[in-house]
């Protein structure tokens, strides 16, 4: 699977993961994994439960520290950086369960994610000026919540919460967007809207998505990576992956 990548030089990749390993008390959740994501690519990671999908995202965004290996984002080594530094570098992450501030309003949720005043002094002197308000409104419109700015976030539906979290990432304008099961728990119409949203927002950035819903994957993926036991089992177009006998064995064998 990797030979397809061999002729491409590393500088063309937004994200290049090489030899990544993490072990929890001897259990290797991710084992010598290599993965390359190109600019403006939508890459979907699939795999059975426990394959290490979420762990890979955790490793990229710094939530989990790698035991070995390197993660380079636009030439910067992420394994040595803190979470917030990784965010500053341009990586955004959405969690599996919507992770929003339920006690704050939609506006405040987005405002807090606005990339200004991120240090202590900045936060103390932060002011809600026109730039902020306009940007919040713009993002809110994009995530279909333009008329719900004053609503406390915990009153949103599950799907709306997912969108809000995506909006909180968008307002940071990351170059790499990582989404962990963005359509989980959504209704059919919400899925459609989400797919459309993703297609819209990924125009000028790379996206890494974990998803189970194969129809959704087929809708959005440029390429698919199949993880199994912490390693890459197969990689390529949806069609190619679906016909890979190893993938079929893993999925059916279980």
């Amino acid at each position, binding site marked *: 699977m990797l030979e397809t990548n061999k002729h491409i030089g590393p500088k063309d990749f937004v994200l290049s993961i090489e030899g990544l390993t993490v072990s929890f008390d001897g259990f290797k959740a991710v084992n010598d994994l290599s993965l390359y994501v190109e600019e403006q690519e939508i890459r979907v990671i699939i795999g059975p439960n426990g394959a290490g999908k979420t762990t890979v995202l955790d490793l990229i*965004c710094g*939530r989990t520290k790698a035991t070995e290996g390197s993660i380079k984002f636009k030439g910067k080594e992420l394994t040595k950086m*803190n*979470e*917030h530094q990784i*965010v*500053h570098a341009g990586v*955004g*992450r959405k*969690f599996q369960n919507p*992770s*929003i*501030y*339920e*006690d*704050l309003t939609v506006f*405040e949720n987005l*405002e*807090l*994610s606005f*990339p200004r*005043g*991120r*240090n*202590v002094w900045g*936060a*103390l*002197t*932060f*002011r*809600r000026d026109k730039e902020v308000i306009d940007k919040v409104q713009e993002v809110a419109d994009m995530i279909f919540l333009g008329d719900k700015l*004053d609503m*406390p976030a915990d009153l949103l539906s599950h799907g709306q919460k997912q969108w809000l979290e995506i909006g*909180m990432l968008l307002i*940071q304008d990351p170059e790499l967007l990582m989404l962990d099961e963005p359509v989980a728990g959504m209704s059919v119409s919400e899925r459609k809207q989400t797919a459309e949203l993703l297609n819209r927002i990924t125009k000028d950035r790379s996206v890494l998505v974990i998803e189970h819903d194969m129809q959704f994957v087929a809708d959005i993926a440029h390429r698919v990576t199949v993880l199994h036991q912490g390693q890459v089992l197969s990689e390529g177009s949806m069609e190619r992956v679906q016909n890979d006998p190893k993938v079929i064995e893993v999925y059916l064998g279980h």
Partner: protein
Amino acid sequence: MNKVGSFIGRYQLSHFIILALLIFVVMPLALDSFRLNMVGKYLTYAFVALGLVLCWGYGGILSLGQGVFFGIGGYCMAMFLKLEASSPENTAIQSTPGIPDFMDWNQLTELPWFWVPFQSFTFTIFAILILPAAFAFIIAVAMFKRRVGGVYFAIITQAIAAILTILIIGQQGYTGGVNGITDLRTLHGWDIRTDEAKTILYFVNGLLLFGCLFVARYIIKSKLGRLLVAMREREDRVRFSGYDVSAFKIFIFCAAATISAIGGAMFTLQVGFMSPTFVGTGPSIEMVIFCALGGRLAILGAVYGALVVNWAKTSFSESFPELWLFAMGALFIGVVMAFPNGLAGLYQTYIAPWLQKYVPEKFHWIITNRNPEESGAEIAVAGETASEDEKKSKAGELSHAGN
């Protein structure tokens, strides 16, 4: 809210004014100088409680060692005053005149190096503001950078309070030991023991308290305040929105430390001495109850909490000394179980609606806050403490232990 200048809304302003009237007008008129001085002492604890509102209520960091910072502030001030009281003329009978009496008893023949700068009042003020913050900074960096929080932080700060107490008591030649630094007399020649001086100090104390209240109000109304609330709920989300969570915790802990230290310095000035009993674990926990009773999210509540608990303590121990501990214990349990939001919660749930029935509608803005623009995080959060702690317990406290 959109402008920094309007960080206090109408409703909040009305409550600030009520408190100001209480402290600056009602108390001085209603009380003799003896009782007023006692209230002044209680108000110094309000600084600590206010600091706890910031770091515990908003930052989710429960420190059981706030007495340490109160003590550092108090000792800095006491060192300055003691040096002034120990002029060579006043201490002529000592074997080494010019040094504090307890040093002389402990065979010190010259002032220890770390006492020397405290001959300068400017340095002392500087030390009161900087030393506790610096000490808090060291603790906070060590702990928050490693994501230690919750229970562990509480226990470690408690241990630090215990260590410091043993050290102060043990190093009596340098600290005055268990007796503390006593017999403080004048500040730049101004006798602080007279009734007039105590009344003036009471007002200075009140003004400083209001200064700190405004600072605290500004902090929690700023984006930093909203971030703190957000952090308690979803620490990871804040982190992945590009914020260095530990930096904010360090800041708020240091701010709380400095505020406590100002209280400590004012305590020394008003009470006339400082001793290790205010540094230890017992008083440090007691100070937490001032904050909890007032409402851990209510900055004004901190002041009322400190006043009410201490007032009750004094009157209880005057009339039923044996019952005082029962009352105090019941207060701890009751506040935690029945009124997790303390007096502030009690007010909002019961008193405000009741008042509304009797007050003409156009004055309702004094009683309740109906303008959501003003409320920000504070009101949204009231009533949610339990659930936040809940999340906290799952997210922060146990996670770092490896789960």
